[in-house]
């Protein structure tokens, strides 16, 4: 069985901001997108006991695709892009 770790909104937000920075997205817009996305994920996850990392990436992608296609692409292909 794979190891589990607790979900952290703060960690997810930081990850999104880091990915946004790598794409040279303006800081204030990255912050807005990250806040919106983390709120969306928090709502999605609140009554689910255990989820996978792939689930989180998929949910983040679904939210980000309305906001920034490039950032959404990273989450759709996380673990596949070298």
């Amino acid at each position, binding site marked *: 069985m794979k190891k589990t770790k607790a979900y952290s909104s703060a960690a997810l937000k930081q990850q999104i901001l880091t990915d946004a920075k790598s794409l040279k997205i303006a800081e204030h817009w990255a912050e807005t997108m990250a806040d919106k996305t983390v709120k969306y994920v928090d709502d999605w996850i609140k*009554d*689910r*006991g*255990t*989820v*996978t990392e*792939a*689930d989180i990436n*998929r949910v983040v992608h679904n939210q980000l695709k309305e906001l920034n296609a490039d950032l959404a692409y990273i989450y759709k292909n996380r673990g596949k892009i070298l």
Partner: protein
Amino acid sequence: MARAKNDFDLIVIGSGAAGGASALMAAGAGKKVALIEAHKWGGSSLNYTGVPMDALFHATHLLTEAAEGVKFGISSSNLRYNYPTINNWKNVAMRRAGAGSKKAFEDAGITCVKGRAHFLGSYQVGVNDVRLTARKILIATGAQPLDTGIKGLHDVNFMTPDSILDLIRPPRTIFVVGAGSTGCEVAQYFAELGTKVLVAEVAGRLLPKEDEEVGQVMDNCFNKLGIKVLTQSRVVALEKDSVSKKVIFMRGGQEKSVRIDEVILCTGSTPATDLGLENAGIKYGAKGIKVNKNLQTSMKHIFAAGDCIGGDSSTEKAVLEAAVAVSNLVHRPKAVVEYAGLSRITRTYPEVASVGATEDDCIRRDRKIRKVVVPLSTVEASNTSDFRDGFVKIITDRNRKIIGASIVAPRAGILIQEIAMAIRLGLYASDIADTPHIASDWGELIRIAARRLS
């Protein structure tokens, strides 16, 4: 070797019409079953759409019938209703049906787990912090409200058909969005209680999935009740307007608005598929989980049944699929769902029931048909009850084999079963025409329609 506590023969996700029935059948066949439910035990048909709605509609339709008693010499001048009592009646009906209770499942030896199921792998399902495993899994998660794209929904308190059950009194005015089966039922329910009702539908008629004649009769019935029908109208936004709501809709290319106390969305549902299906390798789309004719998903040990696989939403369809799914789960997958003869009903007054192909379906497929429409006034029952709003329509192929029917009449839900059986058995119009029917009852209409076709 002793079995792990959370290891089962079968996990069923959802305790509604499909899931609940499947779990009971599988447990009856000696399987160790886990049943997971995220909301209320018994699902939609026991807690929301089926039993409670039927109980409420029974009360209000009685009110309408009683109001017409004066022409038969029955005084109805002091006719009134008590809403808390109507509500209480609904609760009694739900309690008797076992709504919200897992007792029937536990009595059958089923392990009931409350929580939201989420696939962690193809043999593993997580619920809360527990992981359950099973050799086979049945997904029966039902459906959820469809995203309408109406602006301003998050700022306005709108109702859904489920929230009717929580009302403590009917509103003064209400706007019903959608005139499908549920929308029409709800619109008439409130109108019968004295609420001023407006109903909007994008299509050109009420009950757009039924044939045109059905929409016309219902339009007449609604006009008599004072329901304002807005066909070819699309609701685009909702806004707060002090204590009321403002509904903005497009009609005839123009934007119009109306101030209303309550808005109820009856715009349909979409399969509930957000449970980590990707983790199990299960294919699905906007129309639901993809299954083969044996109700197997893309993972052969995982099955799905009910609203989550798409198609018309009905308890009857869900139960039919549950029987096939369990047969395939318990034995080798061989059983196939046979939908022929599956009826549809709208519990308005008069009832609307249909089965098989509609005329519109046949026109779309360029299928040559024969049809007949017989108005209610043709038979004695219409004369003795003074009820004329409705008809029986039967459709056959060119060889006069019955392929579909629509009935708008009192007890249409019972009358349609004869045609449903005829379709299932591949009968011809002459088979029905040659069968004696009770002349003084509504069923005589079916014989007359069949005679005209044969």
